[in-house]
């Protein structure tokens, strides 16, 4: 994939994104090969979790969750130490199976896992589920005071954004960006992406130009950053720059993320290429269906958005949004569900008012 812009001179330097992506894949395969030789090798299962999560987050490969599930299953079979439930908790958490993750953590605690390891994971789950926000915020601030590192600053920024404290979130993200003193581009691209989300989707008055600036920078750090490409393409498409949007999405098709095909279909529709768009929409629908079949909770929110929009199935969208809220009742999830419920109400009432579903969402 080709970068659309170079990071500017004030931005931290990092290893070229193409090299980093190749090396991530190299490290991922290396870790799996070592796991195949001996699943109990110290640190190897944990290294697989780290690399697969990076692949999922940055390269948009949804099969990473399948591989992680296989890892958790195989590792739990082979390892009788407290490492197994800790790995299982990480994997369940990655797939948004938060109740399962808490169960694994409880087992790890019973087996004598270090408190710090349990608390870190539990905190991430609480944050993802939007529970105990004050306690989570206090804990996040403690981590940041202790380390000052990007890895602690970005989750704090994300929490502040969830709590709609947008100005603080922006400041924390920028601090993370400036504080970075390593050379991997993944954390920098992640921070840029978070800033793009903040300004493009979360603030009450989104600023697409600022969001696009950060998404462009994320793609410059990591050309294969699928989510950043998708979000930037959305902005370009909304500004009528459909050719630029298409150019961003085409190289990301191979990732396997159905959202790429969905957004590409929208771009093709805007260009009047309806036959091609229809093919992409079918592929997106099929992709979401397959993912939901295997990992319902991991993809419920994105799929809900798809079905509420170009996927054209409001009932399914509402069902998925409700599933998402039941799993992680964050403010954002509840907002999404309300919006879809209203849309579904309108959509159904147009055809048959008696079938209009309730807008009320129970968290």
């Amino acid at each position, binding site marked *: 994939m080709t970068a659309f812009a170079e990071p500017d001179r*004030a931005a931290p330097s990092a290893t070229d994104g193409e090299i980093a992506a190749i090396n991530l894949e190299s490290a991922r395969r*290396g870790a799996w*090969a070592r796991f*195949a*030789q001996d699943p109990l090798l110290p640190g190897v299962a944990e290294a697989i979790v780290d690399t697969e999560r990076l692949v999922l987050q940055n390269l948009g490969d949804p099969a990473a969750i399948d591989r992680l599930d296989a890892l958790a299953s195989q590792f739990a079979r082979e390892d009788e130490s407290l490492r197994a439930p800790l790995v299982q908790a990480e994997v369940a958490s990655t797939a948004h199976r938060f109740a399962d993750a808490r169960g694994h953590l409880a087992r790890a605690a019973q087996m004598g896992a270090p408190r710090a390891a349990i608390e870190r994971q539990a905190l991430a789950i609480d944050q993802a589920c939007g529970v105990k926000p004050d306690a989570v915020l206090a804990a996040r601030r403690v981590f940041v005071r202790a380390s000052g590192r990007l890895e602690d600053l970005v989750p704090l920024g994300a929490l502040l954004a969830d709590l709609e404290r947008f100005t603080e979130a922006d400041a924390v993200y920028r601090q993370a960006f400036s504080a970075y003193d390593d*050379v991997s581009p993944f954390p920098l691209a992640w921070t840029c992406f978070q800033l793009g989300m903040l300004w493009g989707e979360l603030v009450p008055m989104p600023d697409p130009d600022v969001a696009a600036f950060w998404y462009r920078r994320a793609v410059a750090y990591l050309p294969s950053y699928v989510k950043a490409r998708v979000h930037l393409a959305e902005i370009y498409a909304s500004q009528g720059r459909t050719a630029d949007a298409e150019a961003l999405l085409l190289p990301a098709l191979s990732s396997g993320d159905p959202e790429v095909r969905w957004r590409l279909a929208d771009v093709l529709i805007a260009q009047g290429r309806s036959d091609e768009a229809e093919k992409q929409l079918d592929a997106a629908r099929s992709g979401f269906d397959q993912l939901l079949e295997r990992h319902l909770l991991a993809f419920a929110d994105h799929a809900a958005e798809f079905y509420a929009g170009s996927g054209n199935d409001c009932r399914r969208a509402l069902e998925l949004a409700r599933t998402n809220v039941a799993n992680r009742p964050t403010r954002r999830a509840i907002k999404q569900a309300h919006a879809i419920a209203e849309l579904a109400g309108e959509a159904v009432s147009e055809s048959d008012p008696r079938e209009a579903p309730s807008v009320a969402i129970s968290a």
Partner: protein
Amino acid sequence: MSDHVDGPRSIGDPAADITDLFAFVSPANPARTVLAMDVFPSAGEDAMFSNIIDYAIAVRRVSVAGVGNAAKFQPEDDEIRFSCRFETLKRDTAGKAIQCGVCQLPDGRELLLTVNEEKGTSTSEGDVRVFAGLRSDPFYLAWDIGILKKLPNLLQHTNVLSIVVEFDTRRVLDLAKGSLFGAVAETVPPQKRGLLGPAISRIDWVGRPEQTNMRLNNPAMSEINDLRDLWNQQTPFAVSKVLQPLFLQRLKDSHATWDMLDGKPDWTPEAIAATANVFLDDFLLFDVAKPIDDRSHLEIEKSTLSGHPYQTGGGRTVDANSIDILLTWLVNKDREFLLGGSTGATKPGMKVFPYFATPNTELQTVAESVELAAAPDDVWSLIGQFGGAWHPLTARIEMTGAGIGQLRTILTIDGRRIVERLEAIDDAKRFFRYTNIAGMAVSHYTGTLEVRPKGSGCVVDWRAQFLAANNTDRAMKVMLSTLFKTGLDSLKPRFGVAR
């Protein structure tokens, strides 16, 4: 393990993580010295160097400034430095990634490199030759060192990225001033000031093996603060005087713990303190005027601490058993050699340039699964028999022996004989693991078959890892994948497909 994965920062970008440093006299030509650094633990076959890191090996002349409990090795200020930088990737006509780089030599000359070029690059005078690329990891660790339990090599089949510099000893090192040197390797990021402060000086550096992972971060000492990133920020040959007491105390505490690992005290507190002082000056000592072989590693330090003139050139060869040499010294002060569970790395070093063995082939993986509308136990009762002939491509199965270790000889409908050995089975968890003994063009083949509950039905997972032999990886993967799919598909009509 050696210097692999030695701190949160070096883990962030594996291409910046130094695993080992070597210094030895060329076995092919005693007039030439070889310095080498490895990075990227468990590198896959496509691994590349970072394009913004300066990969450097620095050497300083050293003198013996004290012996016995006052042992001290004093480095000079002048530095002989080999510094390699690499570019972003280019593509050849077939689309394959190519990485080029440049090695700056101590006298300022520059040598252009192409990564993975087996012969490396030489100066026009032939006095310096450099290789950069993927090699078999020469380091081996075959212990659970926390409890001194022997294990197979934990780094078997792994690769690293190596930078190998071979040079004319007399021309580069000027032996008239002395033949004892100290070497370090470091990975240096761009020295650009950040918005919140100065750039970090380096990602990682290494002198002797295991300074960070064993001596500063002793796994037997629970609840200690991780000093490895702090150590990695120190300037080689000039560790901060303010921080020296902190590191020194850690080295002493750690050494005392290693000494008692076998329950027997072999070291006096004075000897531990003297050794810690020597280790605090962390550079790999080598004397090019004396013999350097696979057993001479650390001999210079040991003899000097004992009050004797050293006899060998110390250094570290590709095949040196550095972990066992160090462990033996720390644990029992060379009373009894502690030989781990392996006597060598995956591949031994080579006697000719670039000295480090060719990379190991990556283990290939094939995984197939099917979701069935049947209880897991029902499916397992059919396929969980190691000798069960349920696969449609199987004509007959002959069994030899019983329990773990039993062999099954599969006679396929196209006349092949495949012999497999049962390695583990758990009927409660519904899985077994087996290895291939004969009949397939593979080595290191391990297969697993497992039935897991899912919803009201189950999932059958069939996986295998292997190295292809006499066949391409792709061909073997296709063959095995077809074999697995055929077997799993045959279960669908019998048990129904999960909806």
